[in-house]
């Protein structure tokens, strides 16, 4: 592009990048909210007090870590399967 130079982003690329960033933030927030709800639901069972007891605290901590590991494992498998799917679609010329 005349006089345009290296590293300059087109309007389209800028918008695309902005969208990706907002999407990532939104996805992170969804993951985070899911985690809080899940660990609350799985671990908090005692409503005779308004403070988490030791058993609940331990459960919440384990729940957080275990579900993060679950999410990561699913993420890896998902990426692999999605890559395979795109390959198949490319091979079929679609």
């Amino acid at each position, binding site marked *: 592009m005349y006089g345009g130079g290296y590293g300059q982003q087109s309007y389209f690329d800028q918008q695309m990048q902005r969208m990706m960033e907002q999407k990532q933030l939104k996805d992170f*927030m969804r993951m985070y909210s899911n985690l*809080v709800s899940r660990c*609350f639901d799985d671990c908090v069972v005692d409503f005779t007090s*308004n403070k988490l007891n030791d058993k609940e*605290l331990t459960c919440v901590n384990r729940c*957080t870590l275990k579900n993060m590991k679950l999410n990561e494992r699913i993420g890896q498998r998902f990426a692999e399967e999605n890559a395979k799917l795109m390959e198949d679609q490319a091979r079929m010329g679609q």
Partner: protein
Amino acid sequence: GGMGGAPGGQMDPNAQLAAAEQEMEMVTDMFARLGELCYQKCLLQRYSDEELTKAESVCTDRCVAKYFQVNREVSEKLAKYSQANQQ
């Protein structure tokens, strides 16, 4: 501030608007989830009456308090976990 905690700073107005929207979205999403959870944990879904019983009211208060505690615990644990995994 608040539950969302999007960082402030020198942003252009559009980004500021988007961040504010994001944060509000986060707070109302949390609120909706809390509503569902405390309904499940505290309400006897029988409706023999239109009033919250004393027990249901007390349970609801504790439910909200404990939800915020879980939120803090998860947030701290997650921060540590991310830090550990970046090193």
